[in-house]
């Protein structure tokens, strides 16, 4: 025996069709968003191997990044297909946001390494629409809030890269010198401080979801800046022991040794 049918069965069958479509689409969006997150994270890992700044990425990095670009493109196309109009794009914005934030993080990090400038929201949006493997798509999907939150995370990646740069290029002037230290390494600290100042100055109304997300990320961002400050501090303090006229590639001199002793 089963529940009696009712005069409203047809109406509810209509509702069921709509709701099932909605829930199924949400599932697909969640899955594509996870794929986008995963591919973007791998892209960032590949980018971290760059040892230059404001120059085209070395071919080894671009080659390593290649498959992840493909995965990003596939995720983009899946999302563009599901979120093909503004209504849907906003309806599933919460589900797709983690993936988009990670995409922003990867895009802006790569851009920074190549140009030493912060990629703008419009540029990221444009890149996103061009990311698909099957032509353009996904317009209006990437919100400015995704951009802001991705830029917060970008500071973490900049910190990881910069601390390592300070380590291998700063403290050991006599080694690997032939590869050449990147110009403007210390400008990274200036850029990070500028970003910190700009992000802290953002005036987001209390009680909004964006404000609470920013609240969660602010401390980590500040710490990232301070980690680079500390690395730079170490560079300066140690650098002061370098004797007058001491050259990295000269291997030091007897006077150098004495100089040290007399400190």
């Amino acid at each position, binding site marked *: 025996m089963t529940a009696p049918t009712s005069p409203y069965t047809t109406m*509810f*069958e209509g509702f*069921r069709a709509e*709701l099932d479509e909605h829930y199924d689409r949400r599932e697909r969006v969640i899955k594509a968003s996870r794929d986008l997150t995963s591919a973007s994270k791998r892209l960032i890992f590949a980018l971290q191997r760059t040892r230059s700044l404001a120059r085209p990425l070395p071919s080894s990095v671009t080659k390593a990044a290649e498959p992840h670009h493909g995965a990003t493109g596939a995720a983009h196309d899946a999302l563009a297909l599901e979120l093909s109009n*503004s209504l849907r794009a906003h309806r599933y914005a919460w589900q797709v946001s983690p993936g988009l934030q990670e995409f922003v993080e990867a895009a802006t990090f790569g851009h920074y390494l190549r140009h030493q400038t912060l990629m703008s929201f419009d540029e990221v949006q444009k890149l996103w629409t061009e990311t698909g493997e099957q032509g353009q798509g996904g317009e209006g999907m990437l919100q400015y809030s995704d951009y802001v939150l991705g830029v917060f995370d970008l500071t973490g990646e900049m910190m990881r890269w910069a601390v390592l740069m300070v380590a291998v290029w700063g403290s050991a002037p006599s080694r690997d010198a032939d590869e050449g230290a990147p110009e403007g390494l210390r400008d990274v600290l200036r850029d990070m401080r500028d970003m910190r100042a*700009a992000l802290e100055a953002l005036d987001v109304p209390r009680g909004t979801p964006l404000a609470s997300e920013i609240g969660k990320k602010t401390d980590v961002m500040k710490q990232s800046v301070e980690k680079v400050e500390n690395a730079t501090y170490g560079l300066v303090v140690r650098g002061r022991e370098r004797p007058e006229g001491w050259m990295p590639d000269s291997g030091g001199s007897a006077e150098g040794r004495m100089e040290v002793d007399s400190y």
Partner: protein
Amino acid sequence: MIDRGIFEDLQARVDEDAEVRDEIRVIVDTLEKKEKIAQSILAKAHSTPLSQLSSQVLEPAKGAIQQTMASVDDLSAVASAHPYYKWNNMWQRQVQDLVFHILLFGWLGGSIQDGSQPRPGYLLTIDEIGGILKVPVNEKQKDTFHIAIEEYLHALISLLDELARLARNSVTLGDYRRPTHIAQFIKDIHAGFQILNLKNDSLRRRSDGIKYRVKEVEDVVYDLSLRNLIPRDDPTSGQ
């Protein structure tokens, strides 16, 4: 080199959103105030005998509901200028309450359109609600203000809660006919909800409670049936 313009652009977007928020807030507050008046009129249905229902409840309620429409117009106009799902949580509760009260009004036999004949026990469809409020419903393509299915369903559950209460109060008022109508209605709607595949959200939690509404009204019908109080001529009385 960080371009300050990037952040100025972001700040402008944030400020723009803040303005939208304020604009909607004012409209929603007004809607809520008007809604409360409709609510307090419709609350009298529990203590008003059927004979006076039209004059004491339905007529005044009709006026009150019409008053809310200006706010719905305002809301629709402002909201349609922005992405629907970016802001809809700001008015969801108020719109659900309004739809609920229109459903109750309609179920009691009220009619917004002059001249249309009253149909007590009638469930206004989501399209009829949209027609009354002059807004689209279940919009899937255009990013415009509309009544979503979920909102209609929430309102419908509120209606069932209210009717279960009304069944008992009808008995207190000496009306032994209405409970059987209510019982059948609630069971019919319950059967409808049972074919939905809901996720673990607030709609699922609330729909889970409908079985208790079924139980409450069945108990009332049982009480009346046991005492032979159900009028014989009622085709749904199960005699």
